[in-house]
């Protein structure tokens, strides 16, 4: 049984989410502040952490917690679930190594769908042969078995979500992929702004290797496409 840790200072929300996850068959532990969460996680690392950014008297307590958890485990999936919806917070959260950044607008079924998707992805990671196929597009090489991306022979360090986005785009060059399609491909449920943030990060990672990188094109009002 998967253990989900919910760190949220608002008891009503915490309990509602906990109830929903338990109904889905997850084991849930809830914490009201960073200290309690840290103590418990140090004793037993959960399979997934759902963190609010502001925790009781710490406005940025969630970020602190995320950094601490990430230092404990590089693989622990972390999801931010917050009332704050600014892009800056989203970018900060993702940069700290969170796998997803969700706002509390999200309905519970939607949230559970995303969490399920995340666990599915981790499963997929543990069974790499299931998606084991290689895609070659010009200087781009996608290695489905090792979840690795190379550009002109150099390895591009992408997160799992980013890998699946690149995968979805590069598989059919020239086809416009709207955001929903990208989310489906990546097995994640993200909102529009988060997709935009992911695409920006992907571009930047490629541009660090090749400043002239321009293969991911924005089709305004529709989505993105891969051009060769």
């Amino acid at each position, binding site marked *: 049984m998967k253990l989900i840790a919910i760190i949220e200072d*608002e008891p*009503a*929300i915490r309990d*509602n*989410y906990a*109830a*929903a996850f338990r*109904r889905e068959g997850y084991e849930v532990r809830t914490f009201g502040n960073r200290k309690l969460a840290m103590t418990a996680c140090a004793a037993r690392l959960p399979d997934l952490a759902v963190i609010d950014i502001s925790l009781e008297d710490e406005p940025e307590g969630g970020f602190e917690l995320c950094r601490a958890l990430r230092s404990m485990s590089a693989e622990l999936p972390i999801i931010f679930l917050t*009332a*704050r*919806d*600014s*892009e*800056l917070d989203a*970018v900060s959260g993702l940069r700290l190594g969170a796998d997803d950044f969700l706002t*509390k*607008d999200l*309905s*519970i*079924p939607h949230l559970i769908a995303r969490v399920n998707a995340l666990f599915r992805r981790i499963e997929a990671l543990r069974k790499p042969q299931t998606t084991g196929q290689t895609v070659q597009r010009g200087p781009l090489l996608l290695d489905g078995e090792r979840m690795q991306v190379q550009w002109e022979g150099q390895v591009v360090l992408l997160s799992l979500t980013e890998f699946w986005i690149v995968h979805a785009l590069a598989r059919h060059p020239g086809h416009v992929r709207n955001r929903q399609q990208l989310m489906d491909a990546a097995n994640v449920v993200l909102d529009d702004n988060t997709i*935009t943030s992911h695409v920006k990060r992907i571009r930047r990672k490629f541009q660090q290797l090749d400043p002239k990188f321009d293969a991911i094109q*924005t*089709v*305004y*009002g*529709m989505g993105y496409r891969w051009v060769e």
Partner: protein
Amino acid sequence: MSLRLKLLLLGLATLVLPYGGFEYAREMEAALRDGEQQSLQAIAQTLAASLQGRSDLLYRLPTDAGLAAPGPDDLQAVPLLAAPFLDGYADEWPRNSPFRRVFSDGPHQLTLLAGVHERMAYLLIEVRDPHVVFDAPGVDVLDPAAFGDRIWIAFTDESGTQHQYFVATAGPGPVRARRTETQDLGRQVAIEEPRIVGGWQLMSGGYRVELRIPLAMLGARLGVLVDERERRGADPKSFGTLDHDTLAPAGKLLIPSPELTNYLSQFIQPGLRLTVLGADRAVLSEVDALSVATVSSAERGVLAQLYRRLLERPDDVKVVAAQATITGIDRKQLLGSVQIVETAERSLTLRDKALTQLLNFTLLTSAVAVTLMFAFAAWLAVRLARLRRASESALTREGLVTDFPETGAPDELGDVARSFSMLLGRLNEYTGYLRTLAGKLAHEIRTPLTIVRSSLDNLESESVTPSARTYLDRARVGSERLNAILVAMGAATRVEEAIQGAERSRFDLRALMDSAAGAYRTGFPQRHFATDLPEGPLMIEGAPDLIVQMLDKLIDNAVDFSPDQATITLRLHAAQGQAVIEVDNPGPALAGEGHGHLFESLWQSRADGDSRPHFGLGLYIVRLIAEFHGGRAEAANLPDRSGARFRVLLSNPG
């Protein structure tokens, strides 16, 4: 009227000072003159007292004194300023002297005037005579047949002895007096008296004779008799002041003492005139230094002269005069009087001096006061202008950007500035609060809303009765609407944050608009979208994501205000270094003058009855994004008022 002008006028009020000074100087001058008058009077009285009983100083002969009423034959000698030239012309004599004596006899007239200069007495004799008859030339003057017109002079000497002389001539020119002397055998001879000389000259209607007689020869009495003849040798017609038969002089000759002038000279000063008059008011002696300048005009400054010209009045008294009577020893008999005249120049000079200093000082004071006031007013005006500018521009959309001036000033203006600064600070806090209120509110409401929604979500999983489900659905609809409101409220804040974190890149605006139009066609199937785009690419520097958001807001607006199946036109062109995006939509025209407000936060002019939440933020976001790209947003009606046109200008460095 500006503050500067007001204070300048106020400063001009100090000109009262010089005016007051001027009036004061006039008063002072009057007092000075009064004092001068009194001192002059005192001098006159002293002088008169020193002459008391000194008839010897007044007249040459003490017996002449005390003639209160001179007889008709008496002659009063006039002091002459210079010795007359004995040529028979009256040029050197005073004209119209009151001491002329006139004797008339029918058509004939004799005018006598006596004068004295130094040690000589002078006689001016004018005879009006229609028939001037000269002596026959070359004949014995004592031959009666040769007699022409003849003048007799008779006087007594100091011892009282009588002397008689006559003046006769054969023609105009120098003459000498002669006397007849009876010699032995009764023979009469005419002996010339060389001390009595003169000049004989014809004048219109008669002749004139000037004679000089040494004072030493003269005693108390003197007379003149004219023998007028119709022809030579005829019986004469006599008139004059001598007895016709005995030729005894009837009148006195009054001669002022020559010592008197010397005596008076001791008292003379520049600007003073001393006159001693006899009892008959005849001038006995006069020492005149009135016109001798006491102060040279060069000594007076240019300013002083200017002031005098300004201040001089026609009624200004130029002289001061005083008079005192001279009495005899017994203090009853009137001997004469002393007159002193002094120019007022000295008091005027004093006044001028005081006035010059006073006026210089007060005018300088006025000038300094006016200048200071003007400078002060200018300084105040500058400070006020600075305050005004600051108060107009201090509060911008970004908040209180400028340091408020003058808040350090310790005066009332500083108080005003501090109050203003405080007021603006509060206003700034308030507007800042208002600006962030929507975002904060959205954030604060989000948590309880999440509680409601997550509870509703959980409730879905519970088994609820169909009747309860109805209420559940309603609660869900309500919470969804609340959520939409929150999203709308936070939209501006999100855009502001996005602008702060936006990255600029170079991109093709034409391609962006083309693809966006495609998206709108699918997004709003009940509207038609027409595009009017340039042929080639139009590159601009900016954030394409923001531009898309801006277009979204413009299209949202156009769709909201246009009827179904209406055609919305998207237009792009380059003009004057700017990229111009226009969105035209048919529909109601914009009302009134509020076009500028359209782009302000929380402004809306929507008709009621729209169920979707609106906070007037859409066009505000358009403006924010346009300004981020160095441009601006405008709204106008279509030329035929069939709809509205929203235009965004973006700076286009390419």
